């Protein structure tokens, strides 16, 4: 954090001193100040159109990634500039998470497990070296390393782990929602300095993977207490400050603008690559075109969420590369199962066969992976052979439409999508064209995201068709419970965007509940495969495609590992010399 105290330039300070001593009149003082400032400013303006000289001790943007004048030579760590499409609203470990918060929190805090070592995500030790669970999957013991230290030198103990989880559960904010169904505060205990016991409210066989996915940052309780204001458990302070033990610390925090992080050279877990970063800057560049320009101009080393239109431009520029990978961000066309005509199974199958999936892939320039089944390939126990598989087949579409009361068409369906998202609009236009062949009109209804979430609350406000993207992580249970478990929407407060097909099937509900408590991997696999089969047969919504995660990188960036996320793990990266 930068300190801020006024300090005028020496020339102006000297003039001010003379004025205060009475050696200059007010008019002469102002005139001279203006002259000094104006002359210098004019010189600076004339020089400003040339790139600024490299700052001491850093590296400078220049023409292309090879122009890192002033960059350290040899294997000396350098600062990486990362262009992100999103701001970091908070880094309070108990508040909320999204891709930007997650990417930065991983660097500032340690968790029980690492989850970013590859794809599909392996569970790797971090603070937790090993664990064991009871046969009924209700009690779990985690054994911690005794080597970890917080940035202020305090050891990372079981007490800190317990406090971090309990704080999150107490806050009841977004971050707690993943673990709150399974854990409450009283279920977490420190058995000794390096052992934590968690007793679940009900069995959950995939609990360690859930904890790995949840990525609870472990916070230093002593630092939190030092910064507590009016019993807020440090919430105000932790929003923009850290109390962690991760490989980086905060150097500058400029909300809405940029965030600067500095490496902890003697990080307790070491550095996994052949080199390491001296630090990194999370620079916010919201426009995709601007991120591409900044990358190719050498202003940044990595740009995330690159547009598919820019892939070839970047890949064909010497010194740059593109990493395009498919993760778990799955696009669905949810169909309202509680409202006619999409409540009719044959009508849903008609739409599933009428949809031209390949046309969509073409529209997206081939940068999409069609889904096979209701969950993406990266989710454990995904069945690549699940049937039926819906692909564009107008004859089959006609067969199913003929079994509905709307075989002659003459009806209208609303298709809701996010305002301004071209790929969602294109999907709707394909539906409009294909369903038009059956005398069914599709109304294109763009909405801003809050309106879409609100519409998805209840079946009577839910549209016939809505384009939704879901990422429920590599936890099979999450995918089914959050989308097709009727209790996730059939409740007083309604559902959320994932449940917008308002699907109700007692058999599916029972299987989801059974899956939650299943410990045996074989049993888990069988249930997940049954669920996939049922959901493809019932087709509550169209699983359409998985979005790619696209990064543009300078060739200098080394050590990149794809782990299913939009962003990168800075801990593994280093910059090669120009």
């Amino acid at each position: 954090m930068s300190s801020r105290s006024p300090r005028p330039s020496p020339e102006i300070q000297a003039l001010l001193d003379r004025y205060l001593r009475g050696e200059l009149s007010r008019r002469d003082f102002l005139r001279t100040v203006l002259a000094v400032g104006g002359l210098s400013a004019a010189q600076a303006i004339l020089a400003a159109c040339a790139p600024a000289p490299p700052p001491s001790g850093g590296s400078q943007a220049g023409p292309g990634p090879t122009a890192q004048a002033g960059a350290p030579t040899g294997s000396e760590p350098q600062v990486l500039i990362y262009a992100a499409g999103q701001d970091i609203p908070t880094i309070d470990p108990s508040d909320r998470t999204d891709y930007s918060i997650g990417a930065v929190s991983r660097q500032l805090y340690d968790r029980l497990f690492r989850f970013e070592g590859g794809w599909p995500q392996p569970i790797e030790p971090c603070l937790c070296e090993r664990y064991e669970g009871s046969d009924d999957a209700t009690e779990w013991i985690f054994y911690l390393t005794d080597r970890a230290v917080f940035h202020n030198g305090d050891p990372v103990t079981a007490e800190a782990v317990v406090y971090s989880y309990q704080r999150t559960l107490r806050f009841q904010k977004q971050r707690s929602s993943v673990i709150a169904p399974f854990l409450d505060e009283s279920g977490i205990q420190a058995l000794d300095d390096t052992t934590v016991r968690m007793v679940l409210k009900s069995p959950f066989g995939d609990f360690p993977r859930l904890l790995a996915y949840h990525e609870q940052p472990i916070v230093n309780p002593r630092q939190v207490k030092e910064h507590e204001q009016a019993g807020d458990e440090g919430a105000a302070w932790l929003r923009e400050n850290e109390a962690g033990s991760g490989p980086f610390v905060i150097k500058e925090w400029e909300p809405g603008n940029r965030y600067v992080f500095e490496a902890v050279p003697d990080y307790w877990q070491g550095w996994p690559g052949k080199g390491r970063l001296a630090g990194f800057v999370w620079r916010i560049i919201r426009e995709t075109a601007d991120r591409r320009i900044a990358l190719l101009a050498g202003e940044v080393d990595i740009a995330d969420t690159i547009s598919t239109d820019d892939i070839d431009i970047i890949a064909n520029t010497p010194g740059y590369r593109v990493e395009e990978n498919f993760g778990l961000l799955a696009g669905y066309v949810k169909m309202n199962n509680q409202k006619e005509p999409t409540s009719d199974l044959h009508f849903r199958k008609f739409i599933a066969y009428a949809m031209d999936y390949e046309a969509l892939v073409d529209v997206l320039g081939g940068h999409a992976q069609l889904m096979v089944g209701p969950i993406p390939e990266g989710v454990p126990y995904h069945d690549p052979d699940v049937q039926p598989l819906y692909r564009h087949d107008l004859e089959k579409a006609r067969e199913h439409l003929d079994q509905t009361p709307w075989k002659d068409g003459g009806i209208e369906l609303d298709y809701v999508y996010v305002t301004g998202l071209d790929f969602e609009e294109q999907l709707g236009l394909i539906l409009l064209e294909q369903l038009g062949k059956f005398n069914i009109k599709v109304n294109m209804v763009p909405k801003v995201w809050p309106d879409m979430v609100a519409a998805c609350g209840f079946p009577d406000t839910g549209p016939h068709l809505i384009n939704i993207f879901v990422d429920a992580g590599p936890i099979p249970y999450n995918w089914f419970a959050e989308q097709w478990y009727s209790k996730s929407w059939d409740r007083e407060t309604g559902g959320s965007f994932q449940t917008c097909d308002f699907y109700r099937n007692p058999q599916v509900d029972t299987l989801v509940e059974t899956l939650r408590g299943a410990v045996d991997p074989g049993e888990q696999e069988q249930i997940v495969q049954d669920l996939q089969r049922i959901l493809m047969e019932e087709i509550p919504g169209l699983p359409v495609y998985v979005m790619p995660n696209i990064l543009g990188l300078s060739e200098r960036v080394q050590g990149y590992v794809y782990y299913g996320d939009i962003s990168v793990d800075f801990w593994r990266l280093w910059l090669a010399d120009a």
Partner: protein
Amino acid sequence: MHLRYYILRRLLLIVPVLVGLSLVTFTVARLVPGDPVKLAAGPRASPEEIQRLREAFGLDQPLPVQYLQYMRGVLQGDLGRSMMNGRPVTTDLRRYFPATLELVLVSMVLAVVLGIPGAVVAAVYRDRWPDQLSRVLALGSISMPVFWLAIMLQLLFAQYLRVLPVSGRFDARVPYPETITGMLILDTLLRGDWTSFRIALRHLLLPAVCQSLLALALTTRFLRSDILDVLQRDFVRMARANGIPERIILFKYVLKNALIATVSMLGFLFGYSLGGSVLIETVFDWPGIGLYAMNSALTLDFQPIMGITLFVGLLFTLVNLATDLLYGLLDPRIRYG
């Protein structure tokens, strides 16, 4: 004495204006569809969590109660907290406003410094090529979508020529300068930190040029027209008959008389721009009020929306008052009362 009463009356009138503004914004913000609590709570939130968050932000209360609670806070200088980032709105306004003020001030300086001489030249060379050129440039500036122009300038200067940065306020590879006012150009000047000044100026150049175009075009055309009008007046003929040099007539007598309408327009544009230029700030990732307002609106973050509206409304009325007072300096015949 009249001037004091005038200022006092205008200041008192700001109160009902802001109350009306707050009522309208509050009502509109609450009536639009969408549930910010569900957004903030996240997709996995349980009904209990959603309800708890609703209560924490007082959104479970009837609308009149919510409004009164909000206004009570406003009177104590508390504009509430953002539901999305948890920060007090006043903190965010203090953080983002200097960036907007800097952008608007520099763009206004550009508009005045380039616009007034441009208008004089266009008027003096009426219907000749300098006038035609100024007409084409002015119309082009007004009719061209500013975001498109901004992107074109980025492509030219950042991607192809690589002489200016694509966006942002400061070079990411350089430590952020210590600030005094939050306006980097001013702060680096005051500190005599010329390297940082140059970096800040390079970042400011493209957004300021784009931001200045509307004011520049309007200044050039309006002032040209007013200068031509004043040039026809009797006192100008009299001055010429008395042998006063044309340069003095033009700059001392004509320009001063012609500037009144332009000052009024610039005052309006200045106040309006302080609300943040959403397009410019978005394209150039300029962390100002406009970007803050847009992000808050997209997430239906009520408190920042209300806070920004009141703050900008207050600024706008104050700038209008200052503009009205400026008339008196330009034209001593104007009396307040």
